[in-house]
C-alpha cells in the first residue's frame, strides 16, 4: 500500500506541531512563581559566570576598620549594603563571587550523581537479574557508609580540590537516583505501552530512552532539586571541617560556617549567604514543580489555559 495522491485532496492542511521552545516560554510565563524562580536562577548563574571576573578584587579587599559592618548603611558603596564580614570585606560582593564555587560544586555533584545514578538504575531495572544484583549491591555498599564519613576519608587521602569535592559528593548521592530509577523502571517496563513497543520491534535503547525514561524523569528531577540544597550544606560541613573548599576560595556554605562564631553579635555574616542558599533551593523546587506539570501532556492544559485567558 502506498500513499496515493487522491487521499491528500480530502485532508485539510494539517498544521505542524507548535514550536517547543516558544511553547515552553509561554508555559513558563503562565506560572508566575516559576517565572520569577527562573529569573532568579538566571541571576545566580550570571553571578557564577561573571562574578569572579568583575568583583574578585573588591571581594577580597580587607578593610579592618569596617569589621562586621552592619547592613543597610546606604551611605557606603553598594557592595557594603549587606554589611561587611569579620575582616571588613563586603558581603554582597563576596556572595556574588562565591556563587561560582557553590553552583559549580552543587550543580556538578547533582549532575553527575543524577546521570550516573539514572543510567545505572535503568540498566539495573531493565536488563538481566545478575546485572541488577551487582549494581544494587554496590549501591548498598555506598549507602551503608555515612556519606560524610566517606567524604572525610576520601578527601583526607586525596588533595582537597573543588573537583575532588564534586566527585566525592556525587558518589555519595548516586544510590538515591539509582534506587528510584530502578524501582520506577521495574514498574514502567510492565506497562502495556512498553509491550506494544516490543511488539513493533523497538530496540532496547529505544524502549529505555523513548518510553521508560520520560516517565521516570520528572520524579528524578524533583529529587535532584531537593538534593541541590543537601549537597550545598554537605559541602559547607566539609569546608567547615577543613577538607572541602579552603579559604581564600569561598562558597556560600563556607560563609555561613565562618559567620557562625559571630551569630550573637553580627547575624548578617551567616544570614545573607544562608538566604542565598534558601532562595536558590526554593527557586529550584518551584521550577521543578512547574516542569512536572509542563512535561506531562495530561497536566499541561493547566499552564496553557491561563495563557488563553490572558491573550
Amino acid at each position, binding site marked *: *500500500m502506498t*500513499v496515493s495522491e487522491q*487521499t*491528500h485532496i*480530502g*485532508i*485539510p492542511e*494539517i*498544521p505542524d*506541531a*507548535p514550536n517547543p521552545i516558544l511553547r515552553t516560554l509561554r508555559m513558563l510565563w503562565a506560572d508566575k512563581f516559576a517565572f520569577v524562580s527562573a529569573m532568579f536562577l538566571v541571576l545566580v548563574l550570571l553571578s557564577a559566570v561573571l562574578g569572579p571576573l568583575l568583583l574578585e578584587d573588591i571581594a577580597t579587599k580587607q578593610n579592618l576598620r569596617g569589621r562586621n559592618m552592619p547592613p543597610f548603611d546606604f551611605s557606603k558603596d553598594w557592595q557594603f549594603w549587606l554589611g561587611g564580614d569579620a575582616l571588613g570585606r563586603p558581603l554582597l560582593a563576596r556572595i556574588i563571587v562565591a556563587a561560582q564555587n557553590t553552583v559549580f560544586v552543587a550543580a556538578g555533584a547533582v549532575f553527575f550523581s543524577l546521570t550516573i545514578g539514572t543510567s545505572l538504575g535503568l540498566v539495573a531495572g531493565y536488563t538481566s537479574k545478575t546485572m541488577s544484583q551487582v549494581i544494587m549491591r554496590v549501591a548498598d555498599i555506598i549507602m551503608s557508609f555515612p556519606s560524610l564519613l566517606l567524604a572525610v576519608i576520601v578527601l583526607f587521602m586525596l588533595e582537597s580540590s573543588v573537583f575532588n569535592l564534586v566527585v566525592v559528593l556525587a558518589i555519595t548521592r548516586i544510590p538515591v537516583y539509582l534506587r528510584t530509577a530502578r524501582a520506577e523502571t521495574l514498574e514502567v517496563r510492565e*506497562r*502495556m*505501552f512498553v*509491550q*506494544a*513497543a*516490543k*511488539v*513493533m*520491534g*523497538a*530496540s532496547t535503547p*529505544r524502549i529505555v530512552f*523513548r*518510553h521508560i525514561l*520520560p*516517565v521516570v524523569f520528572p520524579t528524578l528531577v524533583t529529587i535532584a532539586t531537593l538534593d541541590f540544597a543537601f549537597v550545598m550544606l554537605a559541602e559547607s560541613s566539609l569546608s567547615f571541617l577543613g577538607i572541602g573548599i579552603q579559604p581564600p576560595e569561598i562558597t556560600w556554605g563556607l560563609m555561613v560556617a565562618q559567620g557562625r562564631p559571630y551569630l550573637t553579635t553580627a547575624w548578617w555574616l551567616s544570614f545573607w549567604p544562608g538566604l542565598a542558599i534558601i532562595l536558590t533551593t526554593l527557586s529550584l523546587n518551584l521550577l521543578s514543580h512547574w516542569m512536572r506539570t509542563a*512535561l*506531562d*501532556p*495530561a497536566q499541561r*492544559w*493547566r499552564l496553557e*489555559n491561563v495563557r488563553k485567558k490572558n491573550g
Partner: protein
Amino acid sequence: MDKRLLDVRNLSVDFHTSHGTVHAVRDVSWHLERGETLAILGESGSGKSVSASAILNLIDMPPGEITSGEILFEGEDLLQMSGERRRKLNGHRIAMIFQDPLSHLNPVYSIGFQIAETMTAHGISKSETRARTIELLERVGIPEAATKVDAYPHQFSGGQRQRIMIAMALALKPDILIADEPTTALDVTVQAQILALLEELQEETGMGLLLITHDLGVVAEIADRVVVMNSGQIVETGTAHEVYHNPQHPYTQNLIAAVPGDGDLAEQVDASVQPILEISDLAKHYGGFVALEGASLTVLPGESVAIVGESGSGKSTLAKTLLRLEEATSGQALFEGKDLLSMSAKEMFDIRRDIQMVFQDPTQSLNPRMSIYDIISEAFVIHPNILPKKQWKARVCELLEQVGLKAEHIHRYPHQFSGGQRQRIAIARALALEPKLIICDEAVSALDVSIQAQVLALLTDLQAQLGLSYLFIAHDLPLVRDFAHRVIVMKRGKIVEQGPVEQIFEAPREDYTRNLIAASLSPDPAEQARRRRALRDMERHPA
C-alpha cells in the same frame, strides 16, 4: 403518602472542573421499594454511578455540588441530615459493593478482621462478631469458612473476593444494598453465581437491591425494573421486560441493537489455501505451573479466529509466546512456513511487521507522553524501510482517517480521546506496519457496548479491505459469535474444543463450552430465564 424505602427526587449534581461545569446528573428521579431490584443502566459517563454516590455521601465536594433535589430514605431527606447521622446509616442501613473487590479489600488485614470491622464500627461486641463473621462467610458460599476467616485477600479468587465484599456489606443486615458493577471484572460462570447469590440473599432479607451496570444481560438476569441513563439524564424507565421488548427512546433502541450475539454468522473462509499461521503443540510452563499445554491451531489468510476462555485459561499466554514477549517452553508456530519460536532476533524483527497486536486497555497501551503522531509514526522510525520520512505525516493522517478519526487531531495526546477513540489509535498504530495478522488481546472488552460494536465493525471492514487475519482473544462469547469465522475454546491451559463458529454455538460438543454459552447473559429477560433453567438442569444432570 406511603413512605418508599428510597426515593430520589429531581436530583442534579454538577462537577466544577477547570474546563467548566459538568452536569453529571440532571433532574433525575427514581425510587426503590423493599424487596425490589432496580437496575440503573448506562454507559461510561452517563452519570449512573453519581446518583448512587450521592446516596452514600461519596461525592467529593468540591468539585462536586448537589444543586437540587432530595434523597428520601424512609421519608427522611438524606441531604438535610447531619454528617454524624448519615455515617450511622451508611454501612448499617445502606451498604455498597464495588466493581473491583481486590482494590476495595485492604491487603494487610485478614478478611475476618475486615468483615468484623464493619460490625464493631457500629457497636457490636467483639465476642459476637467472630461467630457472626463465620456465619456470613458460610452464607455467601466461602468453603471452610471457619479456617478461611483468618486468610488474607490475596488468597482468594476474584469471585470469592466479591463474595467476601458481599458478606461485608450484609454484615449489618442493610435495608438497601447498592451494587456498582458487581460482576464486571468476573468470568461469565462466576458472574452467574454471584448474581444468583445476590438474588437469593435479597429474597431472604427482603432488602432493596440497587444495581448499577452497563450490561443489558445483567439487567435481564436479575432486575425487576430498570432506569436507563444517558449523559446525566434518565431516558427511559420500566420493567426489564418492557424496556427490552418495547424501548421508547432511540438511545435505548440503539443500545439494545448494539448488543452482540444475534447477528449473521460469518461465512467460512476458503480452507484450501495455505494457512498463514500454524501452531502445533505449543506449551508454556512457569516453573511447575502449566500455563499452556499442547495448543495446536491454524489461521487462514483473511480469517478471524477467536480464542475464548475464562481468566487463567492460557489465552493471553498463547498470544505472548507467539509474539515472543514470553519464551515458549516447547512447540512450533509456523508463520508462512517459518517457525516464529526458533527465529533469531534479526529474523523476528523483520517478521514483526507482519504480526501486530492490539491490547486490551488502550489507556495503558498508548504512551501518555507521546502525541498521536509520535505514537503512530514510531512504527516508521523502528522500521525505516517502510516509508521515507517526508511521507510520514501524510500516511499517519491517512491511517487516522482509515480508522475513523480526524486527521487534524494528529498533535493531540492520548488523554484527549475517549476510550473507543484510543482503541482506534491503537489499531492505526498496528496498521502502520501493514501487517498480515493482528492479534487482538481482549481488544474491545474495556469498551462500552455501542463502542464495541463500532470497533468490531471497523475490524471487519479493515479485514475486507486489506485481507487481514485476526487472532481474536476474548472472554465474551456473544461478542465472538458475530465476528469470528472459527472459535477455539480454552480451559486451564488446554484447547478443549475448536470448530467453525456455527458448530460451537449451535452444537457444542464439550460440557465446558455448553456451560460457557449457558452462563453468558442474554439481554432478553425471557430468553435469559430460559437459559437459567438450562444452566440449572445442566448442573443437576451433567451429560
